[in-house]
């Protein structure tokens, strides 16, 4: 059984980070339902492993990392591949939002992930590199390449606010 203190930590993490984690998993599986399955598993892992964190940022980074790993595991399985590809209805998005979202989701994972972490989570290239256990040059290259691909499909995806 887990201590009340641990359960409370995980409960706070659910409240604080579940939206971000679900949106991150969504960039992989492109389905809110599947993303929520993954994130439930992430929190279950948190409860089972009870990792020690130095800070809230450390906790968030760990959760993001585990979400990425679990999402990758899911999309690489034969079970997932064999499922009928159903597109969730997202008619509530504005046309421009839908266009940008679909363009980003259609990128290969290696490009999609840095784009999400950079533009949605607001991480720097160095932080992304640390999170993904790779070097900043690789992240920078992938971001540049992703922007290039988005420029082709959208006519622009610039840094200007």
């Amino acid at each position, binding site marked *: 059984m887990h201590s009340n203190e641990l359960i409370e930590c995980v409960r706070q993490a659910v409240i604080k980070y579940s939206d971000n984690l679900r949106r991150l998993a969504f960039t992989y599986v492109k389905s809110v339902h599947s993303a929520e399955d993954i994130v439930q598993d992430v929190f279950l892992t948190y409860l089972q492993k009870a990792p020690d964190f130095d800070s809230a940022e450390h906790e968030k980074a760990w959760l993001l990392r585990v979400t990425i790993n679990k999402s990758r595991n899911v999309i690489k399985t*034969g*079970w997932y591949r064999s499922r009928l590809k159903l597109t969730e209805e997202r008619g509530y998005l504005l046309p421009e939002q839908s266009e940008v979202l679909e363009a980003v989701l259609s990128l290969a994972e290696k490009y999609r992930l840095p784009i999400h972490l950079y533009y949605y989570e607001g991480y720097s290239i160095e932080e992304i590199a640390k999170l993904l256990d*790779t070097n900043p040059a690789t992240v920078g290259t992938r971001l540049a390449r992703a922007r290039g691909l988005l420029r082709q499909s959208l006519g622009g995806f610039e840094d200007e*606010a």
Partner: protein
Amino acid sequence: MKRNTYRDAMDTVKLNDDFNDKTIAMLENETKPARKLRLRPALALACFALASILVITAAAAGGVQLFSLLYRSDVSAFESYFTEATTPINTENVSFTLESVVYDGYTGQAFVSMKALSEIGTELINQFNTDLEAYSKEEQKGSIFWPEKPDYKRAICNHHMIIAGVDNQQYGGVYFAISLISEPIEDDKCYYLIEWDTGNFELPEIQIGWTDNNETVLTDFDLSATTSNIVIDCSTDDSPYPELTDATEIIVSPLAVYISTRTSEQYVNVCQLIGALCDDEQYYNDSASVFVDENEYLDDLILVKYTNGEIYDLFGSDEGEYKTLPLTDALPLVQNGRNMFSYSEDDENGVRTYCRIDRAGFNELTDLSEVESIIFMGVEYKLH
């Protein structure tokens, strides 16, 4: 403004409002959502047949209680690593069964998965996991055991499950890892993935047995029967970039694809060599793109095409991704980094040939009957 649009769009994606409440309730009850078995049907069938044979064999030996796996080792030689289990557990009526053995004849790696068939078996595994994790934190980072000398000996779960090593490996030490497969199993069963690498290219000799009232019943297990590599001779195929690399042989195993290439030039960054084909902006550190026609390009150099027509990247060429293994999540498994071998050969005239073997993992145990071809540098090599 597109970057803000992305953020707005992502924020607008509707999430279920009751997710947090349901998740917290689930966590408080610790009820893991049911998962589907993810092994491919043919592999699952093979696993079932293998498991059945082993269960029958063990039952004939007289009351299976626990499962042990030995590698060229005398069971009587083992010593307790954990001097005592954290909690005594009654092992009566405990049974394990072998789920599958997949042996990669190319590298000498074998993946063994087994499962507990009873709740108390699961409890034992959980206890072992606790001990293992405690040891990992204390002595090693992560769950990887890479002893300086291959003399590890462990006794697990009150000495009932035994994993022992040998002390005469040729080089590279013994790579050994054990991890709990937590995701795709029915509620009352657990998997273990045991992986070892002998560091040489010989077929390991393995005995599998069970302990029964402190006596171990051993049975030889012929790993060659599980070897199912497919070798493609591609020396006669024309490479589109002969100045860069000439594929001579492709070996496909259920675990990975190995591509042997030979060239008269020392290997340099692929994208630099085919820079003319690369986008202006792309000079990757770790991968490259190959154009299959003027409009379409394929990321990564090694791709797999399944019989249903779908094409996927293989792990191995991307940093980080290579470390992610299939059916595991509780404990990270790290491949031993041998995703590329290279060496050179000089002929009698002193002409040097550079040889290179690239490895790219499937990231799951793959049924080769479902693999149609391997695409390397844009050239498709059929398996069957």
